C-alpha cells in the first residue's frame, strides 16, 4: 500500500474493501485519525473476524471519546454561563453536539470554542477560576506575540481532567491574508436544543476549509476533508450552496472553499456545486498528492512535497515583513 488511496476508497465505498491489506488499511487509518470513521463505515460489512474485533473496539472507543468531548463542552458552558457571553463550539465537538453525520467515529482532541474578541479577558479569567491553567510555555515561545497576532489564546489545560481548551476569537491568525468576519459568524450562530451554540452550516464548512488550507501544512488533511465531505452531503440543498458561496466571499475564503469542494469531490466523490467548486487543476493535483502521502505502514511519504507544504503553512500564517521582524526580535532577545 504505497499511499492512502485504499483508505480513501474504502471510506468512500465500504463495499469495495474486498480482499485488501487489512493491516495496512488499519495503520493508515490510525495515522490519519480516521480509524473511528472507518470502523463505523464498515460496521455492517463482512470482514475477517480479527478485523471485526478491531473495528468494534474502535467504535466503543469513539463512543467514549464523544462522551468526553461533550463533557468538556458542558464544563466550559458551566464556567462561562455567569458571564452571558456567547460561546460557540467548533470542529469535532460541534459535530457531536449537533449530532451531525460528521460526528460519526470522529475523535476529538481539544475543545475549540469561539467567543467575541472583546470578551477574551473575562473568558480566560472565568476558565482559570474554574480549574483550567496555562499550558507550560515552550522554550522560545512568545506569549505577547501569540496574544497579539493569533486567532486564539494560548491554550489552557484543565488541571484534573487533563484536557485542553482553545479559545478562538476568529478562525484565522490575524497575520494571515484573508480576514474572515468574526462578528458575522457570531451573529449567524445557531443555538441547539441542549443550549450549546455552533456556527451556521455554511460557516462550519468555511471554517473546515480554512483550517484545512489556510491555517496549516495539510497534516491530518484526509480527516479534515472527510469532515467536509460529510458536512456537504448533510447540508446540501440549493439554498445551502447559495449561502455557502455568499458567505465564502464575505469571509474572503472563496478560493479555499472552492479548493475544498474540488478535493472532496475528487477523493470522496462528494456531490458539489460546480460553479462554486470550479475545475480541478494542476495545483489541485499537488494538494491531492500531499493528502495521500501516507503508506500502509502508517509512514508519511513524499518528504519534499510535505516540506513544501510545511513552508507554505508557515508563510500563510505570517506575511514576509512580519516574519522578518519576528525573527529579528527573537535574535535580539537576551539568551
Amino acid at each position, binding site marked *: 500500500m504505497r499511499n492512502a488511496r485504499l483508505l480513501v476508497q474504502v471510506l468512500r465505498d465500504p463495499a469495495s474493501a474486498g480482499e485488501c491489506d487489512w493491516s495496512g488499511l488499519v495503520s493508515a487509518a490510525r495515522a490519519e485519525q480516521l480509524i473511528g470513521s472507518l470502523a463505523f463505515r464498515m460496521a455492517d460489512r463482512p470482514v475477517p473476524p480479527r478485523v471485526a474485533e478491531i473495528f468494534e473496539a474502535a467504535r466503543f472507543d469513539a463512543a467514549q471519546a464523544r462522551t*468526553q468531548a461533550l*463533557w468538556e463542552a*458542558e464544563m466550559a458552558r458551566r464556567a462561562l454561563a455567569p458571564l452571558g457571553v456567547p460561546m460557540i463550539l467548533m470542529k469535532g465537538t460541534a459535530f457531536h453536539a449537533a449530532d451531525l453525520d460528521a460526528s460519526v467515529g470522529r475523535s476529538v482532541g481539544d475543545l475549540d470554542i469561539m467567543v467575541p474578541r472583546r470578551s477574551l479577558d473575562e473568558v480566560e479569567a472565568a476558565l482559570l477560576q474554574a480549574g483550567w491553567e496555562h499550558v507550560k510555555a515552550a522554550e522560545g515561545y512568545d506569549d505577547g506575540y501569540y496574544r497579539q497576532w493569533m486567532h486564539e489564546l494560548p491554550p489552557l489545560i484543565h488541571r484534573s481532567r487533563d484536557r485542553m481548551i482553545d479559545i478562538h476569537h476568529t478562525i484565522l491568525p490575524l497575520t494571515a491574508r484573508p480576514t474572515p468576519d468574526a462578528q458575522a459568524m457570531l451573529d449567524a450562530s445557531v443555538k441547539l436544543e441542549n443550549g450549546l451554540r455552533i456556527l451556521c452550516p455554511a460557516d462550519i464548512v468555511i471554517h473546515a476549509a480554512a483550517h484545512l488550507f489556510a491555517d496549516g501544512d495539510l497534516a491530518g488533511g484526509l480527516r479534515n476533508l472527510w469532515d467536509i465531505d460529510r458536512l456537504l452531503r448533510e447540508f446540501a440543498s440549493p439554498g445551502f450552496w447559495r449561502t455557502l458561496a455568499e458567505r465564502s466571499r464575505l469571509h474572503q475564503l472563496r478560493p479555499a472553499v472552492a479548493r475544498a469542494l474540488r478535493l472532496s469531490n475528487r477523493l470522496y466523490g462528494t456531490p458539489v456545486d460546480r460553479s462554486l467548486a470550479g475545475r480541478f487543476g494542476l495545483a489541485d493535483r499537488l494538494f491531492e498528492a500531499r493528502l495521500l502521502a501516507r503508506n500502509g505502514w502508517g509512514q508519511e511519504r513524499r518528504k519534499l512535497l510535505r516540506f513544501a507544504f510545511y513552508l507554505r503553512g508557515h508563510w500563510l500564517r505570517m506575511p514576509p515583513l512580519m516574519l522578518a521582524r519576528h525573527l529579528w526580535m527573537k535574535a535580539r532577545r537576551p539568551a
Partner: protein
Amino acid sequence: MAGPRYIADPEDSVSTVALDGLSVLFHAPSGMTHIVAAPAPEILAMLRAGPADAAELLRRLQAHYDFEGDEAAEAIQARLEELEAAGLVQRA
C-alpha cells in the same frame, strides 16, 4: 443569607458502589469515575429532592440520616464546591 443553590444529575446518571468506607461513582454524562467519602454520596442523594443550598442540605441530611452534625453549613458548602469542580453538581 442563603448561599448558592445546587442541583445534581438524575439518579440514573450515576452508579454508586460502596467499598469499605468509601464509594466509587461512575458518572455517565462525563464517563468519569470518582472515589468519594461521606458525606458526598449522601449529599448527592439529598439533592435529588430538588435544588438546595448548604443550609437546606444540612437540614435534609439531619432529617434523613443519623447525621452527627458537627458539620456546619460551611463544611457542607466546601463539599459542594468540590462536587461542583468534579462536575457532579452544578449551580441551579
